[in-house]
């Protein structure tokens, strides 16, 4: 029986690992996608921060779902969760994330094109260049990104299995996710939107380039995954 002290220490560890990992890894990994998406939607500071929060919420829910699954079938999973299984799942998750990224990029491009046509008729200024709410896309992006289980999360979940309490796995995954959210990315997302919004004359091009980069990132994610697995 694992003592309560060890479990509570693991909770703190999960949060700290999440914080460190979020600051170091998640920011550099997620920022290109997030910044491109923010650029694609033409968001400002507030909207950029909201998008970052929604994206992070998507990741957090993914981690929690993974925690629930591991918690419920933990004892049986300990026999299944080996390196090859994880690698296969990661491949599948990364592939899904790549496809979702491409779809979102394409969707943004279509919306931009549609908006452009409407703007040519009605919009009087670039200030009217708005392409609606895209929070659901940010959420999907975060949700699929979160499914790509990173090594520290895997280690934490594997560590939680002997606790034999499903809630522990969920709590560890949730705390890890929470830690990753409180990272410089939260500020950088808003700042990116703030800076890009300072160039209204380029708004259309920023949106097009942002969406284009998102598509390229999606394609490169898929290609890189295929290369590394082969």
């Amino acid at each position, binding site marked *: 029986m694992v003592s309560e002290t060890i479990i509570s220490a693991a909770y703190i560890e999960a949060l700290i690992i999440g914080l*460190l990992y979020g*600051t*170091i*890894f998640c*920011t*550099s*990994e997620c*920022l*290109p996608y997030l*910044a491109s998406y923010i650029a694609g939607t033409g968001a400002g500071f507030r909207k950029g921060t909201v998008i970052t929060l929604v994206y992070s919420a998507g990741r957090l829910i993914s981690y929690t779902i993974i925690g629930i699954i591991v918690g419920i079938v933990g004892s049986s999973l300990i026999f299944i969760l080996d390196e090859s299984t994880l690698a296969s799942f990661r491949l599948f998750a990364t592939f899904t994330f790549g496809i979702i990224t491409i779809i979102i990029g394409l969707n943004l491009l279509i919306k931009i094109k549609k908006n452009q046509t409407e703007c040519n008729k009605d919009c009087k200024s670039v200030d009217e260049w708005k392409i609606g709410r895209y929070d659901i896309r940010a959420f999907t992006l975060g949700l699929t990104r979160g499914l790509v289980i990173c090594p520290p999360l895997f280690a934490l979940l594997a560590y939680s299995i002997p606790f034999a309490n499903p809630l522990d796995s969920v709590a560890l995954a949730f705390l890890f996710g929470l830690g990753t959210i409180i990272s*410089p990315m939260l500020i*950088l997302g808003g*700042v*990116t939107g703030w*800076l*890009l919004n*300072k*160039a*209204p*004359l*380029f708004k259309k091009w*920023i949106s097009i380039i942002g969406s284009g980069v998102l598509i390229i990132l999606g394609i490169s994610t898929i290609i890189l995954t295929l290369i590394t697995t082969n």
Partner: protein
Amino acid sequence: MSITLLGNILQIAVFAGLILAGILIILIWVKDKTKNISTLRLFVQIAFTVLIFLGLIIGPYGLPQNPYIGDAPRDRLVGADLFGNQFPDGLSVPVLACWYPNGRTITCAVWQLQAYLFPFWESGPGFGWGTFYSLNGLQRIAIVFGFLIAMSLVIGRAFCGWLCPFGLYNDLMIRIRKLFGKKHLSFSDRTNKALGQSRYLIIAAFLILSVILGSQAIFGIQLIDNTAPGEYYYSYFSAPFCQVCPMKPLCVLIEIGAGAMLPLQEINHSTGAFYQAGYYVTSLNLAVLAIVTIGALAYRRFWCRICPLGGLTALFSTFYPFKKVALLRLNKIEEKCTKCGICKRVCPTQVTEVYEEKGGDVTVSGCMLCARCVEMCPYEDCLEVKMAGKPVLKSRNWLEPTENE
């Protein structure tokens, strides 16, 4: 040590005294009302450039207790002696003292932002340039932003108009054009606005890039050979904007010209990777400098319209919420304006708002507060440069002589 410090302070005091004397002489001697502010500005620009590149190399080096003279002057600045122990790479006073040859006391804020923004958590030896910043990374970020915001709030973009050495370079280029009797060219209003806005895209791009490339410091990912932390080319990628900055080659040249840097250091490293044109300078630096020089020969303050450092200063002085508390402002009194359009024509960065806006605070992000419009405005007190609400420069009626004249 205390005698050395006293000597350094004395040298700085003498230099400051000389600058003040120069300002007074200009104010007394230059009677032409359409030239006195410009002359004063030119003097301040030159004085500040000397202060940055030559003044700061006076220091403890060369003394018996400090015989070592390095390859670059960054180790022998007065400020390094004053602040060096606490902040080995200097306080980020946002002036164009390039970190690469100068470093330490005053370092370009653009470099500091890129270098400190992401790898601030880095620790331990052998991690390349990031090693210094690790232990007090958050403190450094706070210092960088603190200084940048404070400086922007106090002098705003007057830094670009009055103090920036690269601004002086741009001004000199257009003076060269004038020597040949040619008038400068002007951008269309839309192009000028687009150029002004592009600086924020540049800032966003290099911030994102520095975060992505900064991840090398943690994981040792080599995007390009020999760029892993601690390896020779790492510094090229930890600060992406600096590798295209047109000011860096000039900083190196000035230091070599002043005898403060060893030219061999540059020449010996001129054959390396395709992007490496010297120990500090990349081929991109040289290419951008060439383009900017050609541009500056045709247009007034060509680089200043897209400069990210100017953009950062503008962000913290001309945009909400900073605009509300910024001290140095350009004011216009609508009742005294006759819409003659002189202010629009003489503005080096082609700012149109001073002419177009009705009155009150007309400080915009493109305005460098150089006060050329104030100098040339022929209507008494129509335009004013105010510091904390108090007028420091006012437009004068230069069309009619005063009683004294």
